[in-house]
């Protein structure tokens, strides 16, 4: 029920949006470096992702006014989330912060700046840097009582390069690769630990129980180096002419992606699709107002879960709006 209310709130919250989307997968990883219709001045964007339950802010600057045919875009981002999710915050009053700071520099038109011809390709690409600091609450059953509950602070650097290409004014191809410090926190099992204290009052012969609940992850926690490789194809939605009746219609666009995490510890390949609905604004820009992300985690079952592909399907929602 809480999840449904959350989804409805996000849909309502997104309605005033008039910006373009930054497509992210369920875990909050950027799939497409997309900044179309970046305003000519500096620009802020707030993002909500229910997949990793994060709230983020991005600030952009560009040199587009100098030369709209060849320019650079810088993006500064800050994203926060409770690492155990909002359910633990609401039910247990428990909050372990997770912060992601990011910077990206993108050059628009590197090799292809199509102004003439049939295919008219345009490309852009750049670097992404980010740093994660997450505090986790963990539980280890096979140890002494006093050491069973412990917390861990994860610090991880991520560096990547990306290259993107638009073909025929509708297909966006994106390729990313890089280095990432990761952990297996999301793969661990969530358990609720309840510590109960008993107080016996002999005068009234009353036994009083008080308990404190905490949501933690159980299992062997590991950190490791990984090399993510992401490939995606996005079908953008076309704008309709100002006087067309179709301007009021919502259109469906989609992104297919394959995300491989090359690593010695937990190699895996996730495949997914983000389906988004776009609405046309007065400027003719079609803005995604709501996105559904369906992801098949560990598509090839490299981690030998042996639980069937359907059981590894995850669903998340993403949207954004301008300040």
């Amino acid at each position: 029920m809480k999840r449904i209310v959350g989804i409805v709130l996000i849909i309502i919250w997104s309605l005033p949006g008039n910006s373009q989307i930054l497509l992210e997968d369920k875990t909050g990883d950027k799939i497409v470096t997309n900044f179309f219709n970046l305003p000519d001045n500096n620009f802020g964007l707030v993002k909500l992702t229910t997949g990793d339950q994060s709230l983020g802010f991005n600030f952009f600057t560009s040199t587009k006014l100098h030369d709209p045919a060849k320019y650079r875009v810088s993006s500064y981002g800050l994203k926060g989330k409770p690492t155990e999710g909002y359910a633990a915050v609401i039910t247990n009053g428990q909050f372990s912060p997770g912060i992601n700071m990011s910077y990206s520099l993108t050059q628009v038109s590197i090799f292809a700046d199509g102004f003439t011809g049939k295919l008219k390709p345009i490309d852009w690409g750049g670097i992404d840097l980010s740093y994660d600091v997450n505090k986790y609450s963990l539980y280890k059953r096979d140890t002494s009582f006093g050491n069973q509950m412990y917390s861990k602070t994860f610090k991880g650097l991520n560096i990547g390069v990306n290259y993107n290409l638009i073909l025929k004014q509708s297909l966006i191809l994106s390729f990313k690769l890089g280095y990432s410090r990761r952990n297996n926190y999301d793969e661990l099992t969530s358990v609720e630990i309840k510590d109960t204290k008993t107080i016996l009052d002999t005068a009234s012969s009353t036994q009083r129980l008080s308990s404190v609940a905490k949501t933690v992850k159980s299992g062997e926690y590991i950190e490791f180096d990984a090399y993510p490789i992401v490939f995606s194809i996005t079908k953008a939605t076309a704008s309709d002419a100002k006087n067309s009746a179709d301007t009021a219609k919502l259109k469906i666009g989609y992104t297919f992606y394959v995300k491989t995490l090359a690593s010695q510890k937990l190699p895996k390949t996730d495949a997914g699709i983000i389906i988004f609905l776009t609405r046309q604004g007065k400027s003719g820009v079609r803005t995604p107002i709501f996105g559904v992300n369906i992801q098949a985690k560990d598509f090839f079952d490299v981690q030998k879960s042996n639980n069937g592909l359907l059981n590894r399907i995850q669903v998340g929602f993403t949207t954004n709006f301008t300040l």
Partner: protein
Amino acid sequence: MLTFDLELRVKTFGSIVIWKVILEDATNENNRILDWRPSDDSTYLFKKLPGYKISDNSLEVFVGCNGIEGANVACEVIINGDMQINKVISKVTDTNYAKVSYNI
């Protein structure tokens, strides 16, 4: 040689990634217009070129753009304070630069 005050105003519609305006000769990148400024109400970008000189009596304005299908770029031309009737409109699906000639 003709000298006049020229102002260009550009409005975009839809998802435009790159665009350019070139005067006189589309193959000469040195004639590309740079350093645009936003209007006070941010509805268009403009470039003022006071005392602009051309060698004949016709000004050629070329506009090219690229982005997502359905988008376009419109360039209004103001010569000596007079808004010209014909705009230069370039669509992302155009296979060449849009061009309009203005007699001075």
